[in-house]
């Protein structure tokens, strides 16, 4: 999950700006609407094709030229897709849910604690540490991939390993292996620090005079006030983990703990692919994210706009 940063010259929080002057329906504007709608239909087409395809029979999906509407609707595909991989799709979904929920929760907590320290607390070496943390956003995934794999396998005292990481397989093939390496994004710390710094300093002084501890202040004042930023970090974390493929592929072996993206691989193994079933499976694993996105859309898009965050 490489992150890239942009600080816009002027913070454009609402993209819904009402700049377009109200004009009557001219020929040009109708043409441009038509063009934009056509473009949107092209972009949406793979989703439409997926939904329609998910109801087609094996014969129909393997026919050329293809049909647009299914001739015979076969909802059975969904049941087949659900039961097809080594375990039911539900099992993989639960795994992904566990990985995404735990990973994201811990991520939000760790990043909030760190962001709070950088924003509010004074201690020696703080600024130096902050630069160090910020510098890690420049480290791409590829360089950490191999060493992290070795670190996971040789994790001391786990999976039959001794104190020096020899003897067993460490954390390899566990939820922890999937969750740990991407747990703290330095960029999220940066984001939350900015959000915390936006809270007026007077609140902190008032809270201290009232005898509030720093943790109490973080929990009772800061968290409610910066909820949108925390939510942004959480949405990106959740979607990134739900969609993750490469890292879980590397560090898991047991089907019972593998996340849902990996289940997709089992649908395309034969010579004659049952595309109806494949599309049903694609739809089932895409749907939760699409719903989440549609529900939290504003949060999501503003998160991107304000930060340039790229999951």
């Amino acid at each position, binding site marked *: 999950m490489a992150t890239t940063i942009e600080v816009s010259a002027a913070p454009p929080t609402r993209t819904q700006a009402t700049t377009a002057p109200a004009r009557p329906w001219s020929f040009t504007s109708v043409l441009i609407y038509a063009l934009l709608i056509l473009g949107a239909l092209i972009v949406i087409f793979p989703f439409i094709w997926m939904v329609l395809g998910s109801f087609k029979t094996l014969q129909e999906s393997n026919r050329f030229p*293809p049909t647009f509407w299914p001739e015979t609707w076969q909802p059975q595909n969904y049941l087949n897709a659900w039961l097809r991989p080594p375990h039911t799709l539900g099992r993989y979904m639960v795994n992904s849910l566990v990985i995404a929920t735990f990973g994201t929760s811990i991520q939000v907590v760790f990043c909030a604690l760190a962001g709070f320290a950088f924003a509010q607390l004074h201690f020696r070496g703080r600024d130096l540490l902050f630069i160090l943390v910020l510098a890690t*956003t420049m*480290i791409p995934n*590829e*360089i*950490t991939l191999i060493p992290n794999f070795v670190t996971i396998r040789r994790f001391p005292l786990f999976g039959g390993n001794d104190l020096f990481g020899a003897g067993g397989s460490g954390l390899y093939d566990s939820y922890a292996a999937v969750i740990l390496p991407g747990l703290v994004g330095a960029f999220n710390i940066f984001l939350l620090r900015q959000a915390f710094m936006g809270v007026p300093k007077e609140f902190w002084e008032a809270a201290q005079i009232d005898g509030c501890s720093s943790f109490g202040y973080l929990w009772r004042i800061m968290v409610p006030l910066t909820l949108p930023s925390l939510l942004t970090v959480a949405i990106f974390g959740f979607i990134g983990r739900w969609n993750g493929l490469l890292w879980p592929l590397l560090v898991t072996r047991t089907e019972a703990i593998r996340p849902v993206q990996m289940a997709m691989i089992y649908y395309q193994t034969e*010579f004659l692919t049952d595309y109806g079933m494949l599309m049903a499976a694609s739809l089932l694993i895409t749907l939760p*994210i699409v719903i989440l996105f549609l529900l939290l859309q504003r949060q999501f898009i503003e998160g991107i706009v304000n930060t340039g965050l790229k999951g």
Partner: protein
Amino acid sequence: MATLRMARKRWQTNQRRTSGWGGVLYLLPALIILLIFEIWPILFNLYISLWRWDVGPLKFVGLANYQRLFGEGFITRDYNDQLAVGEVLHSLIVTIYYVLGRVPITIVLAFILAYLLFIWVQRGRAVLRTAYFLPYVTSSAAMALVFGWMFNPRLGVVNALLQTIGLPTLTWLDDPFPLLERMVPGLAWLPNLAAGPSTAMIVIILYSIWTSLGYNIVIYLAGLSAVPKELLEAARIDGAGGWTILRRIIWPLVSPTTFFLLIANMISAFQAFDPIYVLTRKSSAGAGEAGGPLDTTLTVTVYIFRNFYERANSVGYAATVAFLLFFIILGLTVMQFSMLNRKVHYQ
């Protein structure tokens, strides 16, 4: 008054002193994770690259992996003892085709669409934006398989469309030949690697444009809404036409956004893995290997994966290649950060 100030000052210094350890405690969880899984790996990767390494270290080889990377990795000899392009150079060229095929088109398309949305569309802008953005949040494992079916040479809807409008069909992901050679038969004398991305790579480029377009549109819309409205009004009153406003005002004013997107897209393109893996690991006939056909979609990332995961004893070499990619991406990121600083400075 003075006593109050002194008391306050003492209270503040006390506060500083007492939060000394507290601050570090707050940081500790995040710092430990970053240290183990972000910072240490750079050194550890260097260490691994000095070894022949499989599941564990086998033999210390010093700089041999680097010699191999810059030696036969770039120029090698084929079975006829002729000079030939090495594996690393090959994957670099493939990567550059991918980046060049994906990034400029994405940015130009995104700018046009964002501009039209911004200037012409009031009603329904949010709905259109959602439609364009949706691919960005969906996973490659699922949606790339949908693309795989759409571009299937025997059954795909894309070939059906091409046939309907009377164009020749293509075998898409099964086809290692450059699209240019397929389109212009007279170019067949060109070596394949010199004639641009393979037809298979075109599908991956199309998929990548499809997923990243919405992100670029959203960023452009934000950049456009930062253009001062008075400026546009003034230009309009002065009689400037839409094209002049676009070229003389809007395009220069969103150029920082364009530069940002250029780098961000390049970084993301150099790192692309999931769609290439999902789309190429099985050909339409069921065989294949990620990076195929004939390695024409074997980008550096996939090449690292292949050495790391699929070849025996090559983990050390994979780590060496990872350093190459690391420096490319680091260079791009530094460019991005330096621009960020300049922009903050100008504010």
